[in-house]
Each structure stands twice: as C-alpha cells, then as structure tokens.
C-alpha cells in the first residue's frame, strides 16, 4: 500500500473489489483507531473522539456495495466509514488533529468528516439527524430520475429518537431509494440497549412502515455485504427503503474517556472471539486467497504507512484564524 492522497479516493474505493484488499482496509481502520487513541492519550488531540473498532466489517461492506456517486450520512463514530469509502488516512487524521490539511480544514474535527468525492456528507454529531438527510438525498435522486442511492448509518440508540421514525415513514411512503443501516453495537454511550428500549431486535421496527427489516451478523463481512447488496439494489431499482440491522459490538468505550466498566463480565471477551478482523483473516487463509505470510506482510506495510501518515500529519500546518471566517456564507462576507 502506498500513501494515498486526495484525488485517489475512488481508486481506493474500487480496490475493495479484491477480498484481500478488504481485509487490508479493515486492518487499516483498526490500526488507525488505535493510533487516534494513542494520540489522544499523548494530549496531541483536542476534544473527544469515538472509535469504531468492531464495526470494520460493516464499514467495508458498505463501501463495497455503494458507488462513489451514492451518498452516505454517518455519525461522529465515522473514521472507519470515511476510510472505507476511500478517504486516505492523511485527510482523516489531519482533520482529527485539527490541521489545515484536514478534510474540513481543521474547523470540524473528529465528529465532522466529509468528502463529497466519495459521497460522504459532513458526518452528524447529533444522534438521528442523518436519517432525514439521507431520505432527502434519496428524494433528490428519485425526483431527477437518477439511479443513485442514499444510505444512513446510525446506532442502536438512534433508533429511539423521533428522526428515525419520521425518516423511515417518509422514505416508505415515497418509496425513496435509501437504505437505513442500524449499527447495533449493543450500547448507546454507557447504556446497554435493553435499558432504553424493550425491543432490541431493531430491524423489527421496519414493520411500522411496511418495509423490509433485515438483521445481519455485522461481524461477518460477507454476510453483511450480501444483505446490503440486496437492500441497495432494491433501492436502486425503485422498490423503496430497507432497514438493515447489523449486529456488531463496540470494542472500545463510547468516547475517549470511557473505560466501559459497565459491561457485564465476559461480554467483551465473548464478542472478541467474533472480531471481524479475526474472522475475515481466517476466511482468507482457509479459502486460499492469501497465506499467513502474505497477510503479515500486508499488515506490516499498513503499519508502516500509518507511521508515515502520522508523522506527516503531525508536521503539517495548523489553520490560521482566517479559517474560521471561511465557508459560512456562499459568498465571503
């Protein structure tokens, strides 16, 4: 792998057609998050961040099933999706570090990644806010007769907020080309899902809008991919929205300060056995697509690249105060 810079996004996205490259991307996401965690611990990053370890399979399969012209609304837990969709680690890390070269120029931060070239709208720090927006993008596609699709990715906790309900109903009644992907990682902040809703099989909420609701093992990249493929092609064919519930697990705490002491004993460990990276790696070796050595080499290359990225980003320029005055109105005031 070589350092990818802005402009190569789509190529980076298309590389995922290769199963080995899919594993590589998942590995990159995992390691990227570890680095972000370290940089925080070292005081080199300001504010807060939300790591996505445990949901790499979902992020990568989503990227694989979408076209670069499709649109994604995601959340503050969005580093993995950004990387999966094709954003290079430099752009993402620079933003997280508030650098001038970050994807928003350093005014957004970890919760606000954006790359129109791969269809990523500014990620949403408000729970649920991205669902109606995805429906709206789909409305545009439908109105213009385009075969593009919009996808909203959101958490289990977001399924309890009003925007979820309104967006699904709107999409259902208008048969919009949108897929609602619920990343059910068992927790919303420090609350286990069963503390905040009696219905934990969230795909069943699709019934309220007479649309398909499909659960899937979100730790399994192939299974997830298959379900998303079906949902995306339904949308693209004009058959309306689907609610996909990917059952995943949040390996990290909610945000950087969180040690996740509220987890029942053994829960994390049980889920770790189903780590999407472990599963994907074993499948590649078992299927003969790559040897242990191939993968070890590839992992080393990713590690080295991320070293180089981290070094380059840290040395990059900070924005000047003028940055906060730009991009507020269409025409500079």
């Amino acid at each position, binding site marked *: 792998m070589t350092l990818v810079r802005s402009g190569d996004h789509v190529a980076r996205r298309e590389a995922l057609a290769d199963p080995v490259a899919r594993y590589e991307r998942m590995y990159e996401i995992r390691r990227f998050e570890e680095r972000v965690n370290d940089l925080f611990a070292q005081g080199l990053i300001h504010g807060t961040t939300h790591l996505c370890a445990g949901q790499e399979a979902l992020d990568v399969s989503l990227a694989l099933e979408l076209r670069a012209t499709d649109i994604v609304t995601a959340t503050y837990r969005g580093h993995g999706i950004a990387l999966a969709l094709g954003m290079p680690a430099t752009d993402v890390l620079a933003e997280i570090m508030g650098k001038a070269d970050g994807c928003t120029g350093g005014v957004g931060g970890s919760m606000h990644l954006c790359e129109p070239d791969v269809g990523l709208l500014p990620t949403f720090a408000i729970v649920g806010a991205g669902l109606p927006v*995805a429906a*709206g993008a789909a409305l545009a596609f439908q109105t213009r007769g385009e075969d593009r699709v919009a996808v909203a990715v959101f958490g289990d906790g977001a399924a309890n907020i009003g925007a979820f309900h309104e967006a699904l109903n709107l999409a259902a009644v208008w048969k919009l080309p949108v897929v609602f992907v619920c990343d059910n990682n068992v927790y919303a902040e420090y609350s286990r899902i069963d503390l905040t809703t009696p219905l934990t099989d969230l795909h069943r909420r699709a019934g309220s809008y007479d649309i398909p609701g499909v659960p899937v093992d979100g730790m399994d990249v192939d299974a997830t991919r298959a379900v998303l493929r079906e949902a995306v092609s339904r949308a693209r064919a004009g058959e309306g929205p689907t609610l996909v519930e990917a059952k995943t697990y949040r390996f990290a705490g909610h945000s950087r300060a969180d040690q996740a002491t509220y987890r029942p004993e053994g829960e994390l460990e049980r889920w770790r056995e189903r780590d999407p990276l472990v599963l994907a790696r074993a499948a590649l070796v078992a299927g003969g697509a790559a040897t242990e050595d191939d993968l070890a080499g590839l992992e080393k290359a990713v590690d080295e690249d991320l070293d180089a990225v981290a070094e380059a980003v840290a040395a990059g320029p900070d924005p000047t105060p003028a940055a906060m005055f730009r991009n507020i109105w269409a025409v500079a005031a």
Partner: protein
Amino acid sequence: MARIRVRQAIASALSDAMREDESVLIFGEDIAAAEGPFKTSEGLLAEFGPLRVRDTPISEMGFVGAAVGAAAVGMRPVAEIMFMEFLGVALDQLVTEAAKFRYLSNGRVGVPLVVRASVGSGLGFGTQHSQTLENWLGATPGLKVAVPSDAQTAYGLLRSAIRDPDPVVVLEPRVLYAERGECVTGDAGIVPLGVARVPREGDALTVVALGQTVRAALAAAERIDAGIEVIDLSTVTPWDRETVLASVAKTGRLVTVEEAPASGGWGAEIVATVTTAAFRSLQAPPFRITAPDVPVPYNKALEARFSPGIGEIEHQLTTYLRTGEVPDPWWLREGVAA
C-alpha cells in the same frame, strides 16, 4: 401592474422559480392536492406534477431534514411549515445541520434550501399558532431569515431565497396572505436579500418595521406626517446595517416596531447595533414599540390590542417627537399590567 393577494404572489414566485429551474421542488403538509392550507401553492401540482410538488406526513423534523439532504445534493427544495411553531422540533436540522454544512465541508457542500413558515398574530389562532419566533434562528451564522411585508416582497424575497446558495427561512406574516397589493413578477420583481427597503422617506425620525408592522408603521407615519422615514427591514438576518445607519445619521432618532414582545425580539439587535455605531448622532433615546411580554391571547379584542396597531404606533411616535422622551406603551399608560 396586477393587484394580487400575497398568497398568490407566493404561488407565482414558486411557479416562476420552478419553471426557471428544474431543481426546485416543494413539499409540506397539504400543499399539493389541497394547494396549501393558506392556498400558497395554487396550481402547482397541476403544472409540475407529483414528483416536484409533494404532500408530506406530519413530520416537520423529517421533511425539513429531507430538505437539507435534497439541497446538499443539488436540489433547491422549498419546504412549507404551516405555522412557525412547528419548527420547534426541527431547529436541529436548520440551525445545527443546514447552516453548518458549508463550514463542515470546507466549502464543498452548500445547502440551498428554503423553509417558508407562516408567522404572527391577528387571525385568532391562539397562543400556540400566533408567535413570530424569529429569535429561534437569529443567532445562526450561515442561515438567512427574510420577512415579506406585502405582495411584492412576498414574491421577490422568495425568488431571491430560492436562488440563494445558502439556507434561507422566509417567515410570512399569515395575516397578510389575503391582502392585495401590486406585484411585478419575473426578474424585475425580484427583491434582494439583505437589503432593506425605504417605502417612506423623512428626516425627523427613523422607524424600522418588519413584516406585518410595516403597513401599520406606514399608516401611522402618514397620519403624523412629520418627516418620518419608514424602513422595511425585509431581511432580519443578516440585516442591512448600511441603510439603517444612513437613515439614523440623517434623522438622529430610531424607533423599531415589532409585532411580538420586546424580550428576545429582533428590535434589540437593531437598537443595540445602531446605538454602538451611531451613538453621537442620536438626539434622543432609541426605543422599541412592541407587544407586551405575554403570550398571544385568543379573544379577538385582546389579540387586536396585543400587537401594536396604527393608533398605538401613532400615539407613541407623536409623544416621542413632541417630548424627546420614550413614551409608555398602552398597558403602562392605562395601568393595565399591574
């Protein structure tokens, strides 16, 4: 030049915009088949069809959010909010999302949406359907807010709002929908955002009004006939400092006329800014003519008193011009508010 109703001017602006630009689509509750609860979309479904003219479920947060998404991918959606209050569940999408997309995308994702909402008192809709609430939007860099005061500005500001690359909220004084006025349509009828109008010139006193208080202020000024300049602010954020400051430089006196309570109203921003910028040219204390700090009452006579009418404005301005002092509003003069 045709005299048409304000609601017809709005429907014309929508249809002209939809003819001019295929990316304009409109939606809201009962705006398609029923042509709008206030008939502001008459004829549009018939002309533009059900893809571009849509009835929505009762889901203000959902469809305002949908406007954000549609705008972010290149449409120019116009969402209708029947009564401004209904934005109380949708401010997130306007203030915290739409207004910030350009900033959060390094200038690459604009959100050229328009939200139209009816506002204000005067028709007996009661306290939950008669507020103006432009304060909900006024502290939001990236979001523009315009308020028409007659058929021409209803047409022209809406055309500008739809062409504007930023999110714009147009607050339409509901009481005006049925009023008639002259209205030039087409490009010649477009009224720019951010520019105040000066429908009456004078050099003794600057009166800044907005929306439904413009005509009352004008009528009061006619009666007094003593060099009163009346400014129709038209765009309340960002507002036209130049025009107002130039007027005050000439008159040395400033009064704002608001239909709603003083607290939290737009008048404070005008008075504060002008005072800071033009302190030495002020010859008398600037002040605000407003409703009292109470919820809008239902009873017809009470509702009529709530918002400052021609008589009240005339009284306060006359007293002010005569004495140079700030007059009491009716509820203090009459000792009504204990």
